[in-house]
């Protein structure tokens, strides 16, 4: 297949801005009632008593489910396994134990949302409270090494011959930098809250659910509800942002479905913004120490990256900050990564945009900047001196790596050569100006997928799979890829997604959707064309009746043979057929074990910092990405811009504030949990190298959903150092870190 790259408008854009796209909370059904989560107000203990009498008699209340009157929820099949799974693995409402603040301890169903919410506030609770550890610092004493981190051991080490330990390698390094970096708990905060609308028809469940994975949700719901998978249909054609927090099953979904079953009425539950801070995951807090040993010329001789990350005591999740970064980025003869879990009495964590990578690259790429400063070497040069031409652990070749070109193009576009390496050397009035850079990387993932293509008698073609458009542009990508494969304009292609009944596709997470689903389009197109030709020669009323299929060809929507050219819809009309369809699959193969697959990028950032009052603002950003073929220019660019905005939030603004005494979350709303406003976001210049990675897949595409954020907080911190001479190692970087010793004032 030819490399495709087009710049067209988002197919679902008009539907979304005109309110025609129906999200999971937008479905109204006859006899619908509304569910509302009642959440705990303590971090640890037991519910001693729960008086629901006032709530029960509150207007409109249909039912109140509690640990003392539960809905039956079975344990998910994967419960207890450490590692890859996420979401709620302990069924809630099954016993009166409270393991974290904001845990769902009741489910109120009423005729309206407001009535359910009002009734929930009338439930009288008495707790037996136990002391809780709710922050990383307080839990360090209980830290332990988990069995696995990101599919590897908690400790991974690469030592060159004759070196017995990383510390030995570090001791003999001529130059050493070592620093500890901290990042707080962060929340995804997608614009669309989690919403579930569940209805039963006999023993069959249909559920509109905000998810990144209809088929995963289908399996999990079947398991916890104790029904056959075939009896669950999950629908989610539109997602209003997810960033990882809709990748797993959270308990409000099965509670809604179970209540609908018991009550024999459809039930809708839409989470409030406050509830989303404890019911649907977060990015754990990370403390990481990066130690670099290098020669005086800046060649790394040893790299040690030690990570502590918080994890809910009731649900293991490792924010793999070292494993997913320091084992992949730089050529160093000696590398050690370690990971320790700090158990806290807090809600379960989960994948959040660039899990592990986002905090890990803050540590690693800040440390590289510290090394560059210590050596007096240009930060870009330092990275080139440690350029890994093979994957550092297994020494596999890269499928396709042009990171050096990202640095070169980025430096050129940004004007890096004009940067003064001396801190505090550039100013504009009261504002100190600084420039910094960092590398971006993200693993290229790919999974098995199957796509169906259908020629329709109305002249359109549908392309379908059980995948998602999270706002990422997948509707547009599929239309473009199918358009290329079939020679039909994208306007005539209808992408159909977000239905568990469609052909198999993986979770729309890990930046893998385009790389997994798009390659199956070519196979599906071949199959559909073969079916179309077979149909064209078999029917007696067809213009191609009785011909040998090998004499009939297809091009650009037209069936051709012996001088006849007939559009496919005319062929179908002649045969009185509504459609013909074919399907195709694409899977990763042997190449998985022969190459290293990563996407790369270079992030260049300019900041201004007020020398009196310490506010740091990003004023300019250049990002150059090596992500393989870019199918849809416009939506791809939006993805990277979105990632950089996310990174500006992580760098300067975002932090979930937890009361150290009670585990209460102080900023459970979008007024006090700060994300960037338009005024915080400068012009962002995004460039794609657009070099196909055909070793990875037929189309040469790798993912772009997450790499945009990678390196951004480090680029900002490095630019702030260049502006002020102050090295900030704790995120977010707020004025208090930058008030030190600038105007010679205390």
């Amino acid at each position, binding site marked *: 297949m030819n490399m495709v790259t087009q710049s067209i408008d988002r197919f679902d854009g008009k539907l979304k801005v005109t309110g025609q796209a129906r999200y999971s909370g937008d479905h109204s059904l006859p006899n619908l009632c509304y569910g509302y989560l009642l959440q705990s*107000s303590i971090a640890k203990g037991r519910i001693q008593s729960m008086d629901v009498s006032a709530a029960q008699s509150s207007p409109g209340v249909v039912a109140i489910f509690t640990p003392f009157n539960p809905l039956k929820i079975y344990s998910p099949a994967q419960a207890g396994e450490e590692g890859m799974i996420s979401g709620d693995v302990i069924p809630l409402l099954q016993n009166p134990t409270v393991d974290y603040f904001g845990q769902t301890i009741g489910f109120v169903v009423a005729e309206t949302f*407001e009535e359910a919410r*009002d009734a929930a*506030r009338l439930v009288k609770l008495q707790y037996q409270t136990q002391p809780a550890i709710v922050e990383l610092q307080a839990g360090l004493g209980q830290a332990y090494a988990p069995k696995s981190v990101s599919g590897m051991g908690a400790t991974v080490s690469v030592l060159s011959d004759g070196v017995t330990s990383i510390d030995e390698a570090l001791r003999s390094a001529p130059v050493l930098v070592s620093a500890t970096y901290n990042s707080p708990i962060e929340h995804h905060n997608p614009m669309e809250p989690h919403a579930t609308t569940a209805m039963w028809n006999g023993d069959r469940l249909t559920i509109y659910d905000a998810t990144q994975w209809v088929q995963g949700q289908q399996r999990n719901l079947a398991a916890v509800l104790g029904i056959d998978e075939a009896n669950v249909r999950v629908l989610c054609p539109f997602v209003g942002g997810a960033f990882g927090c809709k990748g797993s099953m959270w308990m409000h979904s099965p509670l809604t479905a179970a209540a609908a079953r018991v009550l024999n009425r459809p039930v809708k539950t839409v989470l409030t913004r406050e509830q989303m801070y404890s019911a649907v995951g977060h990015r754990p807090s990370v403390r990481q120490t990066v130690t670099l040993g290098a020669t005086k010329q800046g060649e790394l001789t040893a790299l040690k990256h030690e990570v502590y990350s918080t994890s809910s005591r009731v649900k293991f999740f490792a924010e793999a900050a070292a494993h997913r970064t320091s084992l992949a980025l730089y050529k160093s003869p000696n590398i050690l990564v370690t990971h320790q879990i700090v158990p806290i009495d807090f809600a379960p964590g989960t994948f959040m945009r660039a899990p592990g990578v986002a905090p890990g690259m803050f540590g690693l790429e800040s440390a590289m900047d510290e090394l560059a400063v210590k050596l007096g070497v240009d930060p870009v040069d330092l990275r080139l001196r440690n350029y890994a031409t093979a994957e550092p652990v297994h020494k596999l070749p890269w499928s396709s790596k042009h990171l050096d070109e990202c640095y070169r193009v980025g430096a050129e576009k940004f004007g890096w050569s004009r940067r003064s390496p001396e801190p505090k050397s550039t100013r504009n009035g*009261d504002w100190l100006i600084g420039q910094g850079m960092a590398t971006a990387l993200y693993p290229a993932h790919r999974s098995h997928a199957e796509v169906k293509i259908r020629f329709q008698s109305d002249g359109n073609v549908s392309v379908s799979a059980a995948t998602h458009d999270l706002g990422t542009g997948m509707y547009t990508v599929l239309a473009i890829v199918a358009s290329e494969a079939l020679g039909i304009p994208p306007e005539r292609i209808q992408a159909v997604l977000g239905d568990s009944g469609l052909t198999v596709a993986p979770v729309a997470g890990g930046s893998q959707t385009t790389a997994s689903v798009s390659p199956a389009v070519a196979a599906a197109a071949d199959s559909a064309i073969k079916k179309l030709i077979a149909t064209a020669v078999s029917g007696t009323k067809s213009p191609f009746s009785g011909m040998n299929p090998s004499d009939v060809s297809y091009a650009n929507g037209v069936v051709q043979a012996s001088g006849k050219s007939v559009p496919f819809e005319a062929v179908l009309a002649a045969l009185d057929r509504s459609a013909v369809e074919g399907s195709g699959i694409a899977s990763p193969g042997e190449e998985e074990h022969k190459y290293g697959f990563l996407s790369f990028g270079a992030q260049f950032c300019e900041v201004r910092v*007020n020398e*009196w*009052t*310490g*506010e740091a*603002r990003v004023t300019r950003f250049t990002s150059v990405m090596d992500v393989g073929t870019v199918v849809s220019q416009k939506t791809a660019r939006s993805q990277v811009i979105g990632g950089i905005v996310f990174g500006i939030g992580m760098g*300067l*603004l975002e932090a979930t*504030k*937890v*009361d*150290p*005494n*009670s585990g*209460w979350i*102080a*900023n*459970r709303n979008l*007024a*006090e949990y*700060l994300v*960037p*406003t*338009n*005024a*915080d976001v400068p012009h962002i210049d995004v460039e794609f190298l657009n070099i196909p990675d055909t070793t990875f897949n037929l189309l040469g595409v790798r993912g772009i959903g997450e790499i945009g954020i990678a390196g951004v907080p480090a680029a900002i911190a490095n630019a702030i150092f260049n502006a002020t001479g102050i090295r900030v190692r704790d995120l*977010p970087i*707020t*004025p*208090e870190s930058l*008030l030190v010793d600038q*105007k010679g*004032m*205390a």
Partner: protein
Amino acid sequence: MKAFSYKLAGSTDEATGTGTQSAFIAGGTNLVDLMKIDVMDPKELVDINQLPMRGVTLDNNGLRIGALEKMAYVAEQPDVVQHFPVISQALLKSASAQLRNMASIGGNLMQRTRCGYFRDVIMPCNKRVPGSGCPAFTGENRMHAILGVGNACCATHPSDLAVALVALDASINLQGPKGTRSIKLDDFYLLPKDTPNREHAIEPGELITGVTVPHTNWYQRSAYLKIRDRESYEFALCSAAVALDMDAFMIRDARIAAGGVGTKPWKLPEVAQALIGKRVSQATFEQAAEIAAKDAHPLSQNGFKVTLLKRTLTRALVQVGGGVA
């Protein structure tokens, strides 16, 4: 949200004659928010939007702003922009464009604190439930006050406009069942002391009809500087309202107040006094700013506000007074 009744007031007398269980509603941008989260639960809302408390006028008696005028409108009035830039700037740096289009001047002055403990009914709060305690003293208090902190409450007053008005010696005009009166805005706001639930010197049934700012020519040499974590739609970590009366490089008079650091909009007369008769210089401004924080009592997370307050004042003074090489 608890059930409530609604009444559209046809006259000011009708509005002020309502009971203690009532709340006045104008733009509703703060009240409705707080009702939704059960922090406020008036039995009756009295809609005052049709009352004649409008207009922005400037004459020898001063600048008079009707309580029902919208923040966005007042911020753009040429008289305000030209003669009272500190007021215009404070308004434009408040909230978001959408909120400024809805929110009234009177409502802005009555807005409640953003303290998270106050805003969540599952937590104790002396302001919301007197005597229940204040977890902020040992908990999340980065955004809290360092000035005017009593034993009961350390929440900041959130209004930017109030800081500018307090600096300029504005008065607030009230009308109630007993008639009309006018008091200095600085006296209108009460320190929390042991009764943080009492935030204003307002009597039951009293309504803010407007504010009056003395007309002094040199107020046109004024500015509002707001320091915040993000560039827009965010409350102040610290802010400064500064007006200077200058004779060449000499400071004849000054009006100064700070926001984001006090349990009420924090007027700084001693800082102003320290500037009078001085020649502008960075050292003069720094010495004066030093006075601002002399009574500061920082909490566990907001010690930086002591430095930030001094820096913010100095920066604002340099901006307004100039004269720094």
